């Protein structure tokens, strides 16, 4: 008799991911689906996907989904959650979505202590539009709009959105994780689970920032992009619990 050690999570649709080889989005989708199943909240979950590479998240994660305009996910999620306080409402946002065009919405949602969870996928670029500079693009990093590298004088330094959101008094749990190694993936799953538990316990706003590899736009092999997270990205964006006032 063989034993099942891994199967497709219940809330992951049997569709083939459209993501580029080596992309972190697919791993993150799977982790979310696993957590939804393990916490048994898939039937009361509502996801607000972004404009970004994950715009088609609804092809993969099998929960109710309501598409938001680029950057507005936190406001849309606020409307849903306020009308359905006993559901689990989460946004899934790229770094351009949450840290550039959607800053006002996320800061005020966090500050109001909206009982929502934001999954913030930081890949350091605007992936969907072809690899332009994001607010999180690292100093010197080449992108299609920083052809000679991000210039701090011209472009300013990368934005520490999660740290900013930690200052907002309504946020209670913010952690930065990565999905570039089995250990980090496990840790990300734990963080996502905790963020949902924070929401279920009605404690306040929760967010998990996930450093995610983008081999295509970083112009690297998938393997190199994994190392790049350890060697470069985490030096600027350290993996850590940024805020935890949950008591969980």
């Amino acid at each position: 008799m063989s034993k099942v050690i891994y199967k497709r999570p219940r809330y992951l649709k049997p569709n083939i991911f459209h993501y580029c080889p080596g992309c972190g989005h697919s791993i993150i989708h799977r982790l979310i689906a696993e957590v939804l199943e393990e916490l048994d909240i898939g039937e009361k979950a509502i996801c607000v996907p972004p404009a970004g590479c994950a715009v088609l998240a609804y092809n993969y994660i099998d929960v109710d989904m309501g598409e938001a305009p680029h950057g507005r996910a936190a406001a849309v999620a606020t409307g849903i959650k306020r009308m359905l306080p006993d559901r689990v409402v989460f946004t899934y946002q790229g770094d351009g979505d949450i840290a550039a065009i959607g800053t006002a919405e996320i800061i005020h949602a966090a500050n109001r202590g909206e009982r929502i969870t934001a999954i913030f996928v930081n890949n350091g670029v605007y992936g969907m539009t072809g690899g332009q500079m994001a607010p999180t693009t690292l100093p010197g990093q080449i992108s299609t709009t920083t052809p000679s590298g991000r210039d701090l004088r011209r472009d300013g330094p990368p934005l520490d959105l999660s740290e900013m959101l930690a200052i907002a008094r309504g946020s209670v749990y913010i952690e930065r994780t990565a999905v570039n190694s089995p250990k980090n993936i496990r840790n990300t799953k734990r963080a996502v689970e905790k963020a949902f538990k924070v929401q279920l316990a009605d404690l306040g706003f929760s967010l998990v920032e996930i450093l995610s590899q983008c081999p295509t736009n970083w112009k690297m092999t998938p393997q190199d992009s994994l190392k790049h997270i350890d060697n470069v990205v985490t030096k600027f964006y350290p993996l850590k619990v940024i805020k935890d006032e949950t008591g969980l």
Partner: protein
Amino acid sequence: MSEKVLMRGTHVIGEAAIRAGCRFYAGYPITPQNELTEYMAAQMARYPGRVFIQAESELSAINMVIGASMAGARAMTSSSSPGISLKQEGISYLAGQELPAVIVNTVRGGPGLGNIAPTQGDYFQATRGGGHGDYRTIVLAPYSGQELADLTVKAFEYADRYRNPVMILADGMMGQMMEPVVLPEPIDPVTLPKGDYILDGAKGRPSRLVKSLYLDPPVMEEHNWKLFRKYQQIAREITTWEDFMIEDAKLVIVAYGTCARIAKGAIRRLREMDLKVGMLRPITLYPFPSKPMKELTLKVKSFLVIELSTGQMLEDVRLAVEGRAKVHFYGRPGGVVPTPDEIAKHTNLIYHRQGLEGEDYE
């Protein structure tokens, strides 16, 4: 039937919305409509399960409304011109995602920061879409306290029936006006039917999706045609207008909202002078009452469009009459409100210049 109460226009809209079962309101301060936001802040708190949020911007407010609407609630936001510009993104998404919502625009002077006086300069923005894409917003133009109440209720009904954003186009004059009003009977929101598209968690049913993204052009095209057919149906079913002293009229004024109110005063004066002047007052600006206007050209050859703008609805009137009648225009933009006397004088001039006093068309 409830009895008459004396209420300010902004409060009438708020109270009618609450009685229509509005469960979610988000707003952001802007004059001249703050009393509506303040009314909602005070009143929504009195009902369990109803939510008022002062949003961080009009952009956020309309997106919160999108979320509340996805969750199946009757939802409303309100603002004035500059804030309505910010809401256009959300209105386009509401149209694309086929979500109901009510948006109140208490129009003020523009462009830019303009001023806070009553104008009708947002007619194009309201009726032509305002946001991007091939869509239409239902636009209702109340002209009295009673209509503020009645059309607010209609706005929610139309929004739900057609799954489309509905805009109430008023102005500061409507908002400040105190008139006796019969308020609608309150509806308990839990008695309203639940849409089969709403997002409330996929329990015992397949998961649902509310979206406006259609990457495949033929699929997007079909979505556009589907919306188009819906707009045609809307035009057939809800086009509303008022005929005023039109039977024997030789000159017909076309005006809506505040302007129509003033024009009525002018027409009464002109009638006393034996001038055969009437009015066609569009109540739905989209769908526009083009058909009755066109039919009117069989006997009326002179129209006078009066607007608090440099001429926006004027284009719709010209399109409706298709050159079958002469279309004159009188406009006061910028927040200047003409008096009935002023309109009477101007109408009189056109009436005589056109030689309408002598001949008889019949």
